[in-house]
C-alpha cells in the first residue's frame, strides 16, 4: 500500500483535465438549473455536439483547430435553439425527461452505423489532436510531490483553467446583474415574471444557450483531452456526474461547480486508487476471498453513490449553498 500514490492520484485528478471538463459542464448546468431552474438532464448532449462539431469539422472537413472550436460552440448554440423552441414551455420534470431523450437521440445517432461516414459509428472519431499537441509549449511533465502531471495534461490544464476562470467571471458578472435576477425569478415562478412584463421565453432561451455553450466548450475540451470523440462518452451518466459535481459545490453559486468537480474527482480518484491498491499485489490488504480486484473497481462507484446520497441528506445546499434557501423548498 502506497499512500503517496493515493494522494497523488487524488490531487492530480482534482486539478487535472478531467476536473476541468466537469467544471465546465457543471458551470453550464448551473446557468440552466442553478439560476434559471431549467432541469436540463441533457447536458451530455450539449457536450456531445460541441465535441462532434469540433471533430467532424477537423476530421471530415479537414479544417483547422480554431474553426473546429468555433464549429463546436456554434453547434451547441444551435442545439439550444432547436431544443429550446419546443421544450422551454414544458414543466420542469417534463423538461428533464425530454432533455435526456434529446441527448440520447443525439448519442444514438452519432453512434449509428448508418451515420458512420460522418460521425464514425460507435468508435467515434479520432485523429484531430495534432494541432492541439503541436501548440503545447511544455517540454515535459511536472511532479510537485503530492501531484504530478504529464506534458499533455499540463497543456490541457493551462488552457482549461483559463477557460474555467473566464466562464466564472462571466457568470459572476451576469448573475449579479438585473439579467441574472430575472433568471432567478423565472426559477421561482414564471407566471409572476410574465405578469411583470418580462419575456420569459427569451430569457430561458438565453440561459439555455449560454449554459449550452459552456457545456459545449466542456465537450470540446473533453474531446481534445480524450483525443477521441466516442458516443458512449456522452451518456446520461455524464450529465448525472456533472450534476453531482454541481451539487457538491452548491447550485446557484459562481464557484460551486468548480469546487464541486474538484472534490468529485479528488474523491473518485483517491478512492479508486485506494481500493485498487488494497486488492492488488501479492498480499493484498483485502484478500481476494472478500473482494477481487474486479469488484474493487466497483467500490468507488458504490461509495460515490453513497457519498452523493449522504451529501444530499446532510448538506443539500452543497459546500457554498445557503441553508435558508433549502428550508424554503420543503414541502
Amino acid at each position: 500500500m502506497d499512500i503517496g500514490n493515493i494522494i497523488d492520484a487524488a490531487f492530480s485528478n482534482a486539478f487535472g483535465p478531467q476536473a476541468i471538463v466537469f467544471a465546465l459542464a457543471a458551470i453550464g448546468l448551473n446557468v440552466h438549473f442553478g439560476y434559471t431552474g431549467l432541469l436540463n438532464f441533457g447536458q451530455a448532449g450539449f457536450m456531445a455536439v460541441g465535441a462532434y462539431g469540433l471533430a467532424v469539422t477537423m476530421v471530415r472537413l479537414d479544417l483547422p483547430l480554431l474553426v473546429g472550436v468555433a464549429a463546436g460552440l456554434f453547434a451547441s448554440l444551435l442545439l439550444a435553439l432547436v431544443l429550446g423552441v419546443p421544450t422551454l414551455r414544458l414543466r420542469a420534470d417534463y423538461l428533464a425527461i425530454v432533455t435526456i431523450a434529446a441527448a440520447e437521440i443525439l448519442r444514438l445517432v452519432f453512434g449509428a452505423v448508418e451515420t458512420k461516414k460522418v460521425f464514425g459509428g460507435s468508435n467515434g472519431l479520432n485523429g484531430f489532436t495534432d494541432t492541439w499537441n503541436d501548440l503545447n509549449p511544455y517540454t515535459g511533465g511536472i511532479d510537485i510531490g503530492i501531484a504530478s502531471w504529464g506534458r499533455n495534461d499540463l497543456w490541457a490544464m493551462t488552457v482549461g483553467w483559463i477557460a474555467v476562470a473566464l466562464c466564472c467571471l462571466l457568470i459572476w458578472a451576469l448573475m449579479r446583474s438585473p439579467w441574472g435576477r430575472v433568471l432567478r425569478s423565472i426559477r421561482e415562478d414564471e407566471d409572476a415574471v410574465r405578469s411583470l412584463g418580462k419575456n420569459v421565453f427569451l430569457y430561458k432561451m438565453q440561459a439555455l444557450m449560454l449554459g449550452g455553450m459552456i457545456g459545449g466548450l466542456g465537450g470540446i475540451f473533453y474531446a481534445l483531452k480524450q483525443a477521441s470523440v466516442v458516443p458512449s462518452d456522452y451518456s446520461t451518466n455524464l450529465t448525472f456526474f456533472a450534476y453531482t459535481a454541481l451539487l457538491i459545490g452548491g447550485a446557484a453559486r459562481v464557484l460551486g461547480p468548480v469546487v464541486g468537480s474538484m472534490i468529485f474527482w479528488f474523491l473518485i480518484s483517491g478512492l479508486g486508487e485506494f481500493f485498487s491498491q488494497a486488492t492488488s499485489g501479492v498480499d493484498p490488504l483485502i484478500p481476494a476471498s472478500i473482494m477481487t480486484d474486479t469488484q474493487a473497481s466497483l467500490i468507488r462507484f458504490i461509495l460515490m453513490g453513497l457519498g452523493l446520497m449522504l451529501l444530499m441528506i446532510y448538506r443539500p445546499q452543497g459546500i457554498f449553498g445557503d441553508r435558508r434557501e433549502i428550508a424554503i423548498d420543503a414541502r
Partner: protein
Amino acid sequence: ACGGGDESSDDNDKDVAKGDGEFVVGSLLPQTGSLAFLGPPEFAGVDLAVQEINEAGGVLGKDARHVKGDSGDTDSGIAPAEADKLIKAKADVIVGAASSGVSMTVIDKILGAGVVQYSPANTSTDFDEGKYAEPDLYFRTAPSDVLQGAVMANLLVEDGRQNVAILARQDSYGETLAEQVKSGLEAAGSKVAVTSFYGEKAPSYDAQVDDVAAAKPDAVVLIAFDETKKIIPQLVGKGVGPQDVATYFVDGNVADYSAESFAADLKGVKGTVPGAEATGEFRERLLAIDPKLKDYSYAAESYDAVITSALAAIAAGNDSGEAIASELVEVTKGGEKCTTFKQCADLLADDKDIDYDGVSGPIEMSDTGSPTSASIGIYEYDTKGGYKAVKYIAGDI
C-alpha cells in the same frame, strides 16, 4: 531485421525519448463488461510473460513491472480513465484493449502520450486503415478480421450456406467483421440475406431478431460479445435458433455456455477464433499463474505482446514507448529465429538480429503493426454448451 539491432541502439538515442530505465507493462484488459469472460486468460498471459522475463533477468537490467487496468466496455467510459492511470504509472507499453471498440477510444490518448498500445485481441480492420495505416505506436498480435472474415465466409460456403443472415454488434469490431464476412461470401458466390446491427446497450433485440427471422436465412452469423446469452433465446423464440438454422459464432462469443439453460440448443454451432492452437505445455504454464482458467482465447497473444515489446526495448537499449515501437516490427521478422524470451534476449545481448516466433504463431508484423499471417481456429459446440477445436486454418492478411 534488415536494419540490424547493432546500429539501431545508437541511432535511436538521438531522435527518440529516453525511457526511465524501468520496463513497465500496463494492461488495459476487460475485468468488467461484456468481454469480462476473456479477461482471465489475457491477464494470465501478461502475468506469465512478465514472470518469465524477470526470471530471465528482466529488461535492461531491471525487473519488468505489470500495472493492471480495466478496459470495461465502450459505454462504461472506464477505459480512458484507466488509460490515464496507466500512463501516469509510467507504463511504456499498454497491452490492450481487447475490444476494438474500446481500443479506438483510447488510441490517440495513449499514442499521444508516447506510449505503445499493443492489443492482443483487436481484430477490427480499422487499425490498418486511414490514419492508423501508417507506422505509429499501435501494434497488435491478433490478426485483422480480413482473415477471420475470409475463414468464416469460406466455412459458410463449405457448409453450403447461400442465404446468410448476419446479426452483429454495432462497433468497430462488429461492423468490420460483418463487412468482411459479407464481402467474402459475395466474392465466393454466396449471398447475405440481411445484416442487422444492434446497439451495444440496447434493452431489447426484438427488432433485429425479427429482421433476421423475416429474411428466412439458411444460416445465422452472430457477431456478439456477452449479449449472446440474451440473443440466443430470442432467436430460438422466433424460430431461427441454432436448432432451426445453422448458427455461427466468432471470437467475441465463442465461450463456455455450459451454465446456460440454452446450452443444449447450441449443439452443432460452429465458431471461429483467431489464434493458433495453444500447446498443452503453454496451458500448464498459464494454469500455474491462474488455476481457475477455463478459456484460453487470446492468452497466447497477450503473452507474445509482452515478450515482443520487452525484446524491442532490449533491442533499442531504451524502454521508452517510442524506442520500443521503433524496434517492434524488427524483432518479429528477419533474423535468427528464437522462441523464448531468454533465448531471444541472449541473442540480442550478442548483438544479433532476431526473429521471435511466439506461442500464438510466427508473428510477422507488417509495417502498420499487425500480423501478416495467422491461424484461425474453427470450433464446434457439443450438447453441453462446451466447445472444442475442429481444425485450424492458416492464412495471410
